[in-house]
């Protein structure tokens, strides 16, 4: 196990370095921040001076070497716009996003397992016909729309919660509830469809033949197998959340990393963009390793790590 983790860690490190190279090149391809930073009426001379001051006119490989050597000293560069170290800005914003992601995924996982397995017990039965459309609808509804309607109904009309902001736990209720809807919808359907599929596997028929009641078959055997696709897709959803739920962060005024990342891309604030992406990537890759380890734990037949069983 430890060897596997170490091997994956090294692979992930390699992936991070590739990511760095790719993103560096990509950001440089989008231009430079001179026109975003300087006011509209700045003269061409002012623009040229600014670009020279920050080295945007140097060839890409020169800029890259400079960046990497700074990186080797732990210096992720200065955010041009925020006039602060880029990693400091990113580290300030990241915990907020992680907290949102954690609460959202916890609730979504629990609820989707419950709802999905109940629906799978009687495919096209009454419960299924009720839950499936509801979760699909909420999953495909535009987040922006749902968030604003939620604010309007629950904060303005009913006055149960504040409209936006972060101050108290009550402030987190609306954003988390709105964020939960998409993963909940997707994961419920995933659980449902893979459990329905598992029920046709031989072991299900064996269990039925042995006389176990419906409920035990569903929860003990089929659920276990459905956890594999569940945690995979949950991982994909979580990745999206860790990269920042920009719409929710913007509407509710949560200074999370999604908003910081998007703004930095628009502004061409390269150091900040890269710092945000790297930070999120580290967490995501660690999560993927954890998911792979869970595969092996959940289904003893699954072999990860390239040692085929014969």
């Amino acid at each position, binding site marked *: 196990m430890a060897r596997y983790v170490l091997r994956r860690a090294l692979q992930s490190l390699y992936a991070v370095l590739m990511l760095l190279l790719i993103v560096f090149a990509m950001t440089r391809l989008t231009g430079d921040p001179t*026109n975003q930073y*300087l006011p509209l009426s700045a003269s061409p001379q002012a623009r040229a001076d*600014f670009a020279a001051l920050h080295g945007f006119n140097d060839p890409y490989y020169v800029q890259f070497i400079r960046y990497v050597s700074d990186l080797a000293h732990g210096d992720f560069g200065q955010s041009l716009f925020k006039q602060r170290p880029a990693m400091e800005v990113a580290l300030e914003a990241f915990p907020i996003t992680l907290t949102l992601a954690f609460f959202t995924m916890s609730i979504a996982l629990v609820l989707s397992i419950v709802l999905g397995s109940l629906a799978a017990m009687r495919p096209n039965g009454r419960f299924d016909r009720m839950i499936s459309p509801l979760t699909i609808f909420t999953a495909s509804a535009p987040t922006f729309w749902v968030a604003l309607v939620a604010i309007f109904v629950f904060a303005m009309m009913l006055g149960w919660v*504040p409209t936006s902001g972060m101050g108290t736990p*009550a402030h987190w209720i609306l954003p988390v509830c709105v964020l939960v809807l998409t993963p909940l919808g997707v994961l419920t359907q995933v659980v449902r469809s893979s459990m329905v599929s598992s029920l046709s596997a031989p072991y299900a028929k064996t269990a039925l033949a042995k006389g176990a009641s419906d409920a035990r078959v569903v929860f*003990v055997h089929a659920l276990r197998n459905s956890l594999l696709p569940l945690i995979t897709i949950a991982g994909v959803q979580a990745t999206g959340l860790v990269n920042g739920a920009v719409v929710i962060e913007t*509407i*509710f*005024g949560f*200074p999370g990393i999604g908003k910081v990342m998007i703004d930095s891309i628009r502004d061409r604030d390269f150091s900040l963009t890269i710092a945000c992406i790297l930070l999120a990537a580290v967490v995501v890759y660690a999560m993927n390793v954890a998911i792979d380890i869970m595969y092996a734990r959940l289904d003893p037949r699954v072999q990860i790590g390239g040692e085929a069983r014969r």
Partner: protein
Amino acid sequence: MANRLRARRTLGATLLASAVVLGFGAPALAQQNDAITVVQEQEPDTLDPCELTKKNVGMVIRENIVETVTEINQQTGKVDPRLAESWSTIDDTTWRFKLRPGVKFHDGKPLNAAAFIQAFKRMMDPNLSCSNRVLYFEGMGVDLTAVDDLTVDVKTPQPSPIMPVLMSMVGIESPATDAHALVRNPVGTGPYRLAEWASGRSITTERNPDYWGEKPQVGKVTYVFREEPAVRAAMVANGEADISPVIAPQDATNKDTDHSYLNSETVRLRFDIGKPPLDDIRVREAINYALDRQAMLGTVFSASWQPAKNMVMPTINGYNDAVPFWPYDPDKARALIAEARAAGVPVDNEILLIVNSGSPGGTEAPTVMIEMLKDAGLNVRLQILESAEFYKFFYKPFGDGQPANILFESHDNNSGDAGFTLVGKYASWGGTSKLNDAEVDSEIKRGLAATDPERSAIFRGVFEKVHDMAVDAVLYHQTTDTRIGPRITYTPTAATNQELQISQIKFK
């Protein structure tokens, strides 16, 4: 397995329940008596005084924490004293400013000539890229001398008739301010001082007990940031904020709390005057006749916008009221295009209408405008662009091989003088100007060197000339909608776009 599942569910439910219970104990609505909450569009990236001409920065610090040397009176358009009590010209190229006595910075240091000069030099430092300098003092070569403790001579190589106006863009901070980097804790002379900056969440300022001027009513201000306009409007309506200086026009539906004010921005369609068919004056005039400016107000543009004749506000020195509005005459537009076509002008060439995503009027206004232009017989296609791509069309140098285009742009001039506009928009060396006319250039140069009343007269002449040449289609003076909660009274001015003087806010 089922037991574990049940346990997890119970734990989750308990956590959620306790979160809800705890949360309800903290009302967001309770306020101290003299504290207010202001909800802004965006958090400023810095609070450095040398960036106070940047909108997000100025809204928090300008005339609140950091004061400027002079101030433009929005009602009269004249320059009022602020940190400088009086000023006069010593000779052609030198202005003498007398500073107000008895003023102290928040850190106790006195405001004097030395502090003034140091703050000014800091602003001019090329390594800091201060927007105050880039916007107003670029390439100026200002020379400062302290005549005595409270008097400073400001000398420039060329005569600078509008130096008092320019000084309204200069914020003075304490000499102890870091000279090599932008600061997040500005130390100025203003009626408020910075109490806390919770990055990403809020900025709090408190009343300065040692302020030299009148004591303001508001004791404490909390600035919060919500990018979504509907949420800002909701916060004021809900009592979570006392004022939102900017809300969206479609949310400004409550007559009791919502007010609109002219914000010194003007929009126009800029013609690519060097490229056919826009190089033909008939085509340009036709575009102006084809646009139904009235119909667009209250529909695709805010109803409170006002049709414009010049690219500057009526209060700006140089505004020419005698310039007529272009009437809506679709028949005349069609006739002009037909005439141009007969004369061999390639009116069927495709023209791009370039719009920056996020412009006022969104995608609706350009769509309607294109329909109007198509009715006249032109071939126009919409192209939305985000900032960097937009700038390639907006600023010089314009790329080679760019197609003929009309560009929808918004211009802001609240400096009190039309010079900035005329240079930027109509001079051949202007950064966003497509015009290359020798006569216009020489007139603008003449005006820049002149003082009033000659200056205004020359500028008026230029506005008349560019109108006659149909250089562009000047559209509207923009307004901003603001929502003001029931606890306070405040009258927005054209400057509310970039500063919110808390001392002007009173409680009911």
